[in-house]
C-alpha cells in the first residue's frame, strides 16, 4: 500500500524550502524502493514549523517539522512512514495546542485536504453549502447569511447579507460577483492561504453569492505579489469547470456561473473596492465617489456583489450549518470567527482562527509566544498599515469590530504585527504617511497632499523644529484627512499616526544630535 505524505505547496512553506523537501522525499523513496504518494496540501498556518511534513496513519495525521531537505534521509531511517519517533516529530497535528485551541470553521480544510482535488474537497464537507443554496433559492440564502451576522472580512465590516439583498433587489440584465483578493495589508496572508490551500471554498462561496443575487459572471482580482496563489487558483478554476461546479449549469442546476481571474499590478489602492472595479475595467485604479454603491452600480455599471475572499469563503459553512450556528460564535455585533494573522517579530507566527472577542494579548502572548527576538513587546499594530499601534497597556482590548473602534483602532483584515522594544514609533508614524503618499491614487487632496505634508512635518518634529506647534499641526492634518478623504487610505492613515502620538509620545522627542558630536 502506498504511504501518503503531505508536504505543503503554500508559498510561505515554499519560501523555506518545501519544494526541496518534497523532491528529497520522492528521491529517497525511489532509492529505497518505497511506494510514496506526495500530496502538496495548503499550510496549516503554523509557519514556524514549515516545511511541516505529515504522514497519514491509522492513528491520524502525524507531523514532523520544520523539515529541511537534509533531514529527509534520517526521517526514512527512523521509519517515519509508519509514524515512528524522530527528533522533529510533533505527534498528531490536530492535537497540537496551537491548533487545538482554535475554532476553525473557515480554515477547517486548509492544510488538510488536497487543494486541487474536488473529490477530497467533497470528502471534507465541501459543496454541501452550494447544494443547499440551490435547493432553498435566493431569498432563503440571503436570510441565512443575514442570520449568520457575517460582516465583510476585508476590513470594512459591512453586513454581507444586506449587501447581497441590495444586489438581489436591483433589476439588471447582467450582475456580477467580484472577489477582492488584493490582500495588500502588511501582516495579512489569510486570503493567500485560502487561494492556495482551499480554493474550492472560495469558488463555492462565489457560486452561492451568484445564486443569491442572480449573477452569471464572477471575477477574482488577485494581487501580482501573489504569483503562486494566482497560478493555484487558476488551476482550481479549471478543475471546478471540469467537475461541473462552474459553467452553464452549476452542479446540474438551471444556474449558469463562471469565474475569471485578473491580476493586479502592484497598486495597494486597488484593494479599495471602487478602485478595484476601475482596475478590473482596465482603467487607472482611482477611487470612485460613493454613492452609487457597487451593489447598485458596480462593475461596468452593473449591480455587483463585492466581497473579500474570507467573506465569500465563509458562506459555504454558513449554508451547510445554518446562519444561527455561525452566529453562536463571537461577541456583540461581531458574529462568527475571524482568521487572525500573527506576524512581524513574533515567535509563533501564523493563522489563528478564533471567535471574535479574544484579546490582543491572547493572540500575541498565548499563541504567539512573545517576540522572536526575545525582547519585550513594545507595540502591536492591528489591522494592517492603516491600523493603530497598541502599547502594552492596551493589549487586553478584545478583538471585535466595535471594541477596536472604541480603542481608536480597527480590526481591518485581522492582521496583527508585533514589534519589540527596538521600534521607534515616530519612524512608524512617518512611514504611515509615506506609504499613503506612495500609494495614494491622487484623486482627493487630503490623501494626495496631506500624506506628504504629514511626513515632512514629522521630520520637523523629530528634528526639534517647533515641536509642539508641529504636533498640533499633524493632529489637525489627521482630522482633515479623516473627515475629507474619499476612501479608507487617506481616511485611516491617521490611525497609526495618532496612536503613535497618543501612546508613544516619547518617541517624538527631538533626537539627540549624536551624529554632530561624533
Amino acid at each position, binding site marked *: 500500500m502506498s504511504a501518503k505524505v503531505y508536504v505543503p505547496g503554500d*508559498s*510561505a512553506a*515554499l*519560501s*523555506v524550502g518545501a519544494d526541496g523537501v518534497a523532491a528529497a522525499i520522492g528521491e529517497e523513496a525511489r532509492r529505497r524502493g518505497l511506494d510514496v504518494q506526495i500530496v502538496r496540501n495548503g499550510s496549516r*498556518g503554523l*509557519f514556524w514549523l*514549515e516545511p511541516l511534513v505529515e504522514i497519514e496513519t491509522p492513528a491520524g495525521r502525524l507531523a514532523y517539522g520544520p523539515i529541511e531537505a537534509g533531514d529527509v534521509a534520517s526521517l526514512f531511517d527512523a521509519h517515519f512512514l509508519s509514524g515512528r519517533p524522530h527528533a522533529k516529530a510533533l505527534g498528531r497535528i490536530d492535537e497540537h495546542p496551537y491548533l487545538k485551541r482554535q475554532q476553525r470553521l473557515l480554515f477547517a480544510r486548509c492544510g488538510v485536504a488536497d487543494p486541487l482535488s474536488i473529490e477530497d474537497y467533497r470528502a471534507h464537507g465541501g459543496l454541501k453549502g452550494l447544494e443547499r443554496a440551490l435547493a432553498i433559492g435566493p431569498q432563503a440564502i440571503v436570510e441565512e447569511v443575514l442570520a449568520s451576522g457575517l460582516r465583510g472580512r476585508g476590513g470594512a465590516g459591512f453586513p454581507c447579507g444586506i449587501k447581497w439583498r441590495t444586489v438581489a433587489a436591483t433589476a439588471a440584465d447582467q450582475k456580477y460577483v467580484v472577489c477582492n483578493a488584493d*490582500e*495588500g*495589508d*502588511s*501582516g*495579512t*496572508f489569510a*486570503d*493567500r492561504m485560502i487561494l492556495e490551500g482551499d480554493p474550492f471554498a472560495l469558488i463555492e462561496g462565489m457560486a452561492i453569492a451568484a445564486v443569491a443575487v442572480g449573477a452569471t*459572471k464572477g471575477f477574482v482580482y488577485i494581487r*501580482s*505579489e*501573489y*504569483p*503562486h*496563489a494566482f497560478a493555484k487558483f487558476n488551476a482550481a478554476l479549471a478543475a471546478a469547470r471540469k467537475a461541473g461546479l462552474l459553467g452553464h449549469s452549476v452542479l446540474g442546476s438551471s444556474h449558469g456561473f463562471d469565474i*475569471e481571474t*485578473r*491580476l*493586479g*499590478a*502592484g*497598486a*495597494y489602492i486597488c484593494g479599495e473596492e471602487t478602485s478595484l472595479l476601475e*482596475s*478590473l475595467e*482596465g*482603467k*487607472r*485604479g*482611482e477611487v470612485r465617489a460613493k454613492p452609487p454603491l457597487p451593489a447598485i452600480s458596480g462593475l*461596468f455599471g452593473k449591480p455587483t456583489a463585492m466581497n473579500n475572499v474570507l467573506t465569500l469563503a465563509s458562506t459555504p459553512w454558513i449554508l451547510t450549518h445554518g446562519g444561527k450556528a455561525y452566529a453562536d460564535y463571537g461577541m456583540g455585533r461581531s458574529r462568527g470567527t475571524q482568521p487572525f*494573522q*500573527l*506576524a*512581524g*517579530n*513574533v515567535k509563533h*507566527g501564523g493563522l489563528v482562527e478564533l471567535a471574535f472577542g479574544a484579546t490582543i494579548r491572547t493572540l500575541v502572548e498565548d499563541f504567539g509566544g512573545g517576540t522572536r527576538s526575545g525582547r519585550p513587546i513594545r507595540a502591536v499594530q492591528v489591522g*494592517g*498599515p492603516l491600523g493603530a499601534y497598541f502599547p502594552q497597556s492596551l493589549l487586553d482590548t478584545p478583538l471585535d469590530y466595535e471594541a477596536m473602534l472604541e480603542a481608536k483602532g480597527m480590526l481591518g483584515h485581522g*492582521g496583527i*504585527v*508585533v*514589534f*519589540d522594544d527596538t*521600534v521607534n514609533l515616530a519612524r*512608524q508614524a512617518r*512611514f504611515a504617511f509615506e*506609504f499613503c503618499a506612495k*500609494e495614494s*491614487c491622487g484623486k482627493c487632496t487630503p490623501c494626495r497632499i496631506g500624506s506628504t505634508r504629514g511626513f515632512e512635518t514629522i521630520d520637523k518634529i523629530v528634528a526639534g523644529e517647533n515641536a509642539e506647534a508641529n504636533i498640533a499641526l499633524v493632529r489637525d492634518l489627521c482630522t482633515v484627512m479623516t473627515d475629507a478623504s474619499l476612501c479608507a487610505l487617506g481616511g485611516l492613515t491617521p490611525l497609526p499616526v495618532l496612536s503613535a502620538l497618543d501612546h508613544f509620545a516619547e518617541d517624538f522627542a527631538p533626537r539627540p544630535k549624536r551624529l554632530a558630536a561624533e
Partner: protein
Amino acid sequence: MIRKLAWDEELAGRLIDERKTADGALMPILHALQETFGYIDRAAIAPIAEALNISKADVHGVISFYHDFRAAPASGRALKLCRAESCQAMGCEDLIDHLRRAHGLTPDSETDGALRIETVYCLGNCALSPAALIDGAPIGRLTAAKLDALVREAGQ
C-alpha cells in the same frame, strides 16, 4: 534568470489581438506584454489604443499608474524585497542598508545590474518576515548571509 524576448511588433500585435475582446481587456494585455518582453514598449501604446477603441493617453495613463509596469527593458534577476511593517519589525531596513554598504545596490534604482532590487509592500509571508521574491520564487526569513549568496549567484 528569466529570459525575455526582444520587442517584436508582430508578436505584440498577436498578444493584443488574443485578449482584446475580454472584459476589461487592458490589464490582461499589459500583463501579457510585460510577461513576454519584460517591459511595455512605447510602440505598443498605439495598437492597444486602436484595438480597445480608447485614446493613447488612456493607455499611457494606465501603464504609468501601476508600479509593476516597466517602460524600459530590464536585465538581470529581480529581487522584490518587502519593506512593509511586518518585515520592518524583523529588520528589513537593515538588509537594505547591508545591500547598499556591502554590494552597492540601492532599491528601485534606474541603473541595471545583475541583480535588481525592487521595493514591494507585502508578499503575504509575514509570519516568516523578512520576505522576498527572487524572480517569482519566495524567500522567507531573509538574512544578510542569504542576500550575499543571492548577489553572488546573480553575478555568475
